[in-house]
């Protein structure tokens, strides 16, 4: 193979990485906000799936992918409302809540999907196109990798510094992190713990819904059962691997996405190894990462523990 071809492949793998990062990054950064407030939302996978499904229905029904994006966020928010009600108001175990939500949505989306396509060919839609950023996109290599992407990809990357700023440079962020470490410190100042937990879960779930929406609208033209395929779980692993810090989470998501991007390119290159093995790589990597990171330093102290006075 010639140098040019190799270069093109490399650029394609990296550009693919950036695109694949998008949905996981939305979910992971959103869930980071939720977890920093002490709520362990295990329902990321389900929330994402709901976002993807609603995006599909709205995109095919209205023909507008931007309305579909808004609908996906709204769907995430509704699931978030349920999660927040269970964890913050009812103080149900966070893991059981997440388990229930994942099972519910996996079944529900499949059921609704069957009803939606009943008696007709599965409708498709026109997904997102790349929107090159003027000037920046003409930088050699980098321009193609970073600045010739979908609009929501740019948004996802910008959300990392934005959420960092929110968490570490605002009063709101200080209070939110306080919830994850010691909610009583806010309670004794007469500030509502529950209200802030709702906010945190909603932000996380809306971003996760958006991630699901992008997964649908940015990669495909039709819905499949359980289309999220574990990306929500990868988002959770990325938070642990990233030690609950925005840039750590970004790095972990990049690793998973790179592996997935390599896997998709292996098919094109015709390497003589079943590509399913490569497709499993991000998940294998996540298990290896979790084994390596036995210490959970950086984990909020009260994460996943319902707050009682």
């Amino acid at each position, binding site marked *: 193979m010639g140098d040019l071809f190799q270069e093109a492949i490399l650029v394609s793998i990296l550009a693919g990485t950036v695109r694949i990062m998008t949905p996981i990054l939305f979910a992971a950064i959103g869930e980071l906000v939720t977890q920093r407030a002490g709520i362990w939302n295990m329902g990321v996978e389900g929330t994402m799936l709901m976002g993807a499904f609603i995006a599909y229905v709205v995109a095919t029904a209205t023909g507008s992918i931007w309305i579909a994006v808004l609908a996906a966020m709204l769907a995430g928010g509704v699931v978030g409302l349920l999660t927040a009600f269970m964890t913050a108001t009812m103080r149900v175990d966070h893991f059981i809540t997440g388990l229930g939500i994942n099972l519910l949505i996996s079944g529900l989306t499949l059921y609704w999907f069957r009803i939606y396509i009943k008696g007709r060919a599965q409708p498709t839609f026109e997904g997102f196109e790349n929107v090159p950023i003027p000037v920046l996109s003409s930088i050699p290599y980098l321009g193609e990798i970073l600045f010739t992407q979908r609009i929501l990809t740019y948004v996802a990357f910008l959300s990392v510094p934005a959420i960092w700023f929110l968490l*570490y*440079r*605002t*009063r*709101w*962020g*200080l*209070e939110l*992190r*306080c919830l994850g*470490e*010691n909610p*009583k*410190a*806010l*309670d*004794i*100042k*007469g*500030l509502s713990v529950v209200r802030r937990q709702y906010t945190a879960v909603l932000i996380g779930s809306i971003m996760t819904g958006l991630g699901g929406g992008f997964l649908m609208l940015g990669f495909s033209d039709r819905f499949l059962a359980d289309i999220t395929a574990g990306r929500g779980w990868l988002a959770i692993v990325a938070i642990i691997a990233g030690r609950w810090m925005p840039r750590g989470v970004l790095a972990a998501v990049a690793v998973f996405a790179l592996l997935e991007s390599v896997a998709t390119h292996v098919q094109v290159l015709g390497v003589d190894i079943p590509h399913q093995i490569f497709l499993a790589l991000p998940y294998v990597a996540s298990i290896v990462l979790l084994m390596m990171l036995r*210490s959970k330093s950086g984990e909020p*102290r009260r994460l996943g523990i319902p707050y009682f*006075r």
Partner: protein
Amino acid sequence: MSDILKAVNLTKRFPGVIANENVNFDLRAGEVHCLFGENGAGKSTLSSCLFGFYQPEGGHIEIGGEIANFKSPRDAIHMGVGMVHQHFVLVAEFSVLENIVVGTHESGWQLKLTDARKRVEGLCAEYSIDLDLDARVGDLAVGQQQWVEILKALFLDAKVLILDEPSAVLTPEESLRLFRIIDHMKELGLSILLISHKMVEVMQADRVTVLRKGKVVDTVCPANVTPNELTRMMVGRDVELRMVRDRTEDAERKFETVLNVEKVSYRDGRGKLALDNVSLHIGKGEILGLAGVSGNGQKELFEILSGVLVPENGCLSLDGERIEGLPSRQYMDRGVGLVPDDRFREGLIPEFNIRENMILGWQRHDDYTNGMFLDHKQIGSIADGLIDEFQIATPSGATPVNHLSGGNAQKVILAREFVHSSKLLLANQPTRGLDLGVIEYVYKQIIAKREEGYAILLASEELEDLLNLSDRIAVMSGGKITGIVDPLTTTVEEIGLLMAGGKEEQAA
């Protein structure tokens, strides 16, 4: 002096208990008023009502003569009531300044802490508190965390300060400083409600309100009563204030070493050196007291001595046999008994009944089994015998231990460990949080075990008790033994210095 804070017929119930019943009490402007009572007398509930954390079911609170209806601590803070909690409500990961500011809305939406920093620095100067405002609170010593808690309340411009057992975790030296700070607050016109069960502190207050079983017994001036009278008001009967052990035979005793600990070090999960070259020995029939503010390695030492943790370095021997690294069951089989400091979490399984808890850890023992099954008949009869012997107040042996009071629960642990051990008894804070009557009982049992020839390690935060009971006292600070002293010749001051890390550091 006028009343600044007043409780009128205050009643607060929790499911099944009346924590406060028709409590009347007033705090005058510029006084130090002490709330005195045993654990469970309703002191903390009352203070939680006074700062709006709980809402009373009956009666009301007056601030400066006007009825105040606190819906949340926010309202109390607005009225100038500040609270310093017994169990610190701090965020370990935050800096000192962030802990003080969080939840106060003292900065704009964007965190700008310059003004807040100036104010906190001013407060530190006013009260001669020396703190690095950017230090992570989790890295501070427990004593310093207390200053952070106090600054949090002062930062909110409190006129009335409620201090809930503020000296519980302080060294004697730090307690003195605390009371100097309290005096200074008084000079500045603050009114202080001090919750305490320490007689020394109570006697320093301007007035004392004694609570018993949720009701006010009386409000008195310490100048007009004796400590014994106050104790009688608190407990409702006469108790021996301090156990004093008979020392007449002490001189003839020779302690043949049972446990020998040599240069033991231990690093905790976070890599912190929790025990640093600890050496000590305990003889047959000897009580070795262990003094020190908790969190200075005592817990780790107890767990190493009972085989729960394995030391990184050093050796342990019991009756001359090396035992480090052996599984904890071996320690039990060799006659070691452990009374852990957190009784409900580590000493018992709260949901299990008394009988089951009585044999906890010994469930494989031949006495309690029939082949592979538990012999419930046998367990029941042995446990019920112990319930009588240790005077555990319970309807039956089938009662879950989480239905028991702290004192009765502690007796379950004592019964289990006393009966199953034979040589060495490790008791970490066995009297913490117990009523005077039960404390008296626990100490009598420990003394009886000493007479039987047990080697005993007894940790306590009550220095007076250690001085009265121990044959020798080891002092711990920062994971080290900073000194071993003779209770008959030492002083509280000397032990206090050792608790603070030793003489060298104190001079600096």
